[in-house]
């Protein structure tokens, strides 16, 4: 009802122009709030933890963030379509195993790496096809594939780590490129590519549209099923890439690699402001979310906070961030409910 009276007022009253300067807290919090949290966190850590701000430590943090950040980048696509992928941790393990076994089998390093990434993409393709074309709930499909893929990783390795000290692609985990750790370079490339795809391409626009209103997207001629399938392939490929980096870093195939990583990745995405309901969020937010989680973990370790307490703090931060995000949106949601979007009957 308020909506209608407002509109009548709009017709008669002179409309304030867009350029009217006024500080809109919600607007700015939406854009830079999470970054402010990150900066505050870094300043806090640098003050309390003596070694935090050293270059070596910052590189270490960046390197440890890279794997979760790459997983989270792929997951952002999925969550933007209102889906979820619980299998990325297990996919990471399978991809690492595939890449290491391929390298041990005598394939050249680049081919082994490619096979690892493709294995991840294939797992994502299966998730995507089941979700999109059989209309199964993504949560259940990927819960199943999480277990299945973990079993596959154990089966392929007989449950034992497969160590290859001569691993041809070990530099992907341990090397430096122009003085920067290679995983960090890979992470940067993944994020630049993901940003470009989501913000500048037709496909990216369709990902947002499918998450916002799948029916509207369908009526606009977008192949919704294909878009949904594709986001799981992207998540799988990112998990594959993360798996290769993980394997390279520990110079072995670990069937237990990435256990529960999917939860950290989801936390990073949500912390970064992407809505689990789909359609709303930015890839840059996911990167900042990953960095916050990474900085928090490393900082708490440097401060000698007991492990149990670390879990309490990390869990609390995630819940706090989501609560802030939800409160921030509340006025808008109420406005919409009373607005003209009501059904006709």
């Amino acid at each position, binding site marked *: 009802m308020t909506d209608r009276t*407002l509109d009548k007022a709009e017709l008669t009253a002179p409309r304030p122009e867009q350029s009217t300067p006024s500080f809109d807290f919600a607007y700015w919090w939406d854009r830079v709030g999470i970054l402010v949290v990150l900066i505050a966190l870094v300043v806090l850590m640098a003050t309390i933890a003596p070694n935090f701000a050293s270059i070596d430590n910052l590189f270490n943090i960046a390197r440890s963030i890279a794997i979760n950040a790459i997983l989270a980048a792929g997951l952002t696509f999925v969550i933007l379509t209102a889906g979820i992928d619980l299998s990325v941790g297990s996919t990471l393990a399978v991809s690492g195993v595939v890449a290491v076994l391929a390298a041990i089998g005598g394939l050249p390093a680049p081919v082994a790496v490619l096979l690892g990434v493709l294995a991840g993409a294939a797992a994502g393709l299966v998730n995507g096809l089941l979700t999109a074309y059989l209309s199964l709930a993504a949560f259940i499909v990927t819960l199943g594939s999480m277990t299945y893929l973990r079993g596959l990783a154990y089966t392929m390795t007989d449950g034992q780590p497969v160590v290859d000290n001569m691993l041809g692609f070990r530099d992907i985990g341990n090397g430096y490129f122009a003085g920067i750790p290679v995983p960090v370079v890979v992470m940067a490339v993944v994020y630049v590519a993901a940003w470009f795809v989501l913000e500048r391409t037709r496909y990216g626009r369709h990902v947002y549209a499918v998450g916002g209103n799948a029916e509207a997207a369908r009526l606009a001629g977008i192949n919704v099923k294909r878009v949904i399938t594709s986001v799981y392939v992207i998540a799988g490929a990112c998990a594959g890439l993360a798996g290769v980096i993980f394997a390279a870093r520990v110079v072995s195939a670990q069937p237990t690699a990435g256990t529960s990583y999917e939860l950290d990745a989801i936390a990073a995405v949500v912390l970064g402001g992407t809505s689990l309901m789909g359609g709303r969020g930015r890839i840059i937010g996911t990167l900042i979310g990953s960095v916050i989680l990474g900085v928090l973990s490393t900082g708490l370790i440097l401060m000698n906070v007991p492990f149990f307490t670390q879990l309490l703090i990390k869990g609390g931060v995630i819940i706090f961030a989501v609560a802030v995000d939800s409160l921030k949106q509340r006025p808008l949601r109420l406005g919409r409910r009373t607005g003209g979007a009501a059904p006709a009957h």
Partner: protein
Amino acid sequence: MTEPILDITGLNKSFGPVHVLHDVDFAVRAGEVTALVGDNGAGKSTLVKCVAGIYGTDSGRVRFRGEEVHIRGPKDAADLGIEVVYQDLALADNLDIVQNMFLGRERGSAWLLDEANMEQAARETLASLSVRTVKSVRTPVSALSGGQRQTVAIAKSVLWDSKVVLLDEPTAALGVAQTRQVLDLVRRLAEQGLGVVLISHNMADVFEVADRIAVLYLGRMAAEVHTKDVTHGQVVELITAGRSGDIGLARPENAVL
């Protein structure tokens, strides 16, 4: 009398054993607003969905600008220049006005959207329809009022050099002032030379903007009349009984589903 831009003759449509449309004739003329009225279940939405290519038809001929066409899917209809504005609007709340207007038909290459071009075209389209109620074409649709959303949905349909626009209950969820804006917009679409079909339950709206009124009664076209030749009461009678005086179906009591 102008030649209809869209001319449907003898259209039949069944869903399983239910015969929803019986030999329906329906014409849309460029530059005119044709109101499509009828009681619930009369087949209005089905007829629109057949024209839009969402449902296939069992039989019937469709001529578009004098030539016989076969509409086999929504894309065929869109290619001809037939656009539908759905009752539930089909807008993505999370996208802004420009993004919604160009959804599925974005300009620029697949790898690099031409945002400036789309923004410009969206602004021009809104201006050509004298829409002044939206502040910025970059406003997310979630922040718009019901009337503004309807406006965007309608503007979206005319962006495509469309020839025929079908509006399904565009004022059903709106308040007085917003209804006013949308009806003005409907009138302007016709003034721009489009063939406009307005589905509505609201007789006041129909008599205000429609040049012709087509009445569906239990899946049959009871009458297609000039608005100025009939009264409010006659139209209501046609809707509820299929017949009013000497206009309407000859034996409406035989018109069973």
